[in-house]
């Protein structure tokens, strides 16, 4: 082996064995070693055929679905998950919610100079373990390093390819007046977990994210319910409120929700009250909403209950003809209230 040399720089680089350096993104030996020793070895040789370029994945039968997402969560680690679990679960979930079985993922890393290897390794380990548990291999990748201060530690992108189940096409346009809206578990866990960790709010016990993969429960719901499953959506940014607003817009119906029916962990509620946040607007990462022909509501809930990714699924309302407001919420005081569409960053308020 030749010593790695650079004719471009005098003096030569000193290899940091503690942190990511710009040299790890420069296309040379340090990058190749990083990829070989700290990524491919974790993700599995067979998965990542050519981490730095294009991968051949053979033939795909059926209608192909594709989804891409970047992950920029801060902090990188929080109770219940980390940026790695999000990156694997999030893209799998987007495919699953669109009615597709995920086949494989790509993984692209943007690393900030100075990122400790200890952090890097923890994230890669988490990605490897999560992808493995989900049964979805990572087949291609990319690594970039940016100058200190040009990124916040680490950003990830995963892009997922899947195939659609049969010819069934779910869509919010399939929602009929009277269809039940079912949520798969306690809401607002992810957003509260991240907020508490980021702002050092020091709650005890620290609130935990709901980060989870939904491809298995989605597939089971599709087989069990067929076209009685109108559509599904993971309630990520903007929370349940964002899902309901999108469905109202696409279906031209109104979505009505009984606030009392929303599953909510007591500790999530405590934090929301203290910070003045409405849980319907708080992000989830493994909790979804499904619109279901009303006579199949119990069937849907039964299927959900067989999956550990769903905890305490519950019907929360139904679709109905639109009058004025696209989304309505009953808070038990008589008249229904229009529910705002999420617009802005969630900030703790004292007012």
């Amino acid at each position, binding site marked *: 082996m030749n010593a790695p040399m650079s004719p471009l720089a005098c003096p030569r680089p000193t290899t940091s064995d503690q942190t990511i350096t710009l040299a790890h993104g420069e296309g040379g030996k340090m990058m190749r070693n990083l990829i070989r020793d700290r990524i491919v070895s974790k993700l599995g040789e067979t998965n990542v055929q050519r981490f730095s370029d294009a991968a051949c994945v053979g033939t795909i039968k059926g209608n192909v679905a594709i989804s891409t997402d970047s992950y920029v969560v801060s902090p990188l680690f929080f109770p219940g998950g980390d940026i790695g679990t999000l990156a694997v679960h999030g893209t799998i979930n987007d495919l699953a919610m669109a009615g597709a079985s995920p086949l494989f993922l790509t993984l692209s890393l943007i690393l900030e100079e100075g990122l400790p290897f200890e952090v890097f390794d923890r994230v890669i380990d988490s990605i490897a373990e999560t992808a493995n548990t989900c049964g979805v291999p990572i087949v291609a990748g990319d690594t970039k390093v940016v100058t200190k201060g040009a990124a916040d530690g680490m950003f990830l992108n995963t892009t997922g390819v899947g195939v659609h189940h049969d010819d069934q096409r779910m869509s919010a346009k399939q929602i009929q007046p009277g269809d039940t809206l079912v949520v798969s578990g306690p809401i607002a866990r992810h957003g509260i977990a991240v907020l508490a960790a980021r702002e050092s*709010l*020091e709650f*005890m016990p620290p609130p935990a994210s709901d980060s989870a993969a939904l491809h298995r429960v989605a597939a089971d719901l599709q087989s069990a319910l067929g076209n009685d499953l109108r559509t599904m959506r993971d309630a990520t940014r903007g929370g349940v409120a964002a899902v309901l607003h999108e469905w109202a817009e696409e279906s031209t119906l109104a979505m009505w929700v009984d606030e009392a029916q929303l599953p909510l*962990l*007591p500790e999530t509620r*405590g*934090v929301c009250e*203290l910070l003045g946040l409405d849980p319907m607007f708080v992000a989830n990462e493994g909790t979804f909403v499904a619109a279901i022909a009303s006579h199949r509501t119990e069937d849907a809930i039964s299927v959900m209950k067989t999956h550990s990714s769903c905890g305490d699924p519950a019907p929360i309302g139904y679709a109905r003809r639109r009058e004025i407001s696209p989304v309505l919420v009953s808070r038990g005081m008589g008249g229904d209230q229009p529910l705002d569409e999420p617009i802005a960053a969630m900030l703790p308020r*004292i*007012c």
Partner: protein
Amino acid sequence: MCLGVPGRVVRWINRESNFAKAEVEFSGVRREIHMACVTDANLGDYVIVHAGIAICLVDEVEAEQTLAELKSLGENSDETP
């Protein structure tokens, strides 16, 4: 303004006047809260917390009286629909 939330005092951390602090529970989640304005709170007492400090004790007697009024109100309204 003035978002105030009732929480239960579960543990005193520091009773030294200006630096007084206690662990307060809100629906299963606890946080350290500054207690300089309610240094006389007992464990189990409820306090109203605003912007990280307890601004008053909840008076359980008054609370029960209010709830009793509400109950009779419900009964009244049942009587006169």
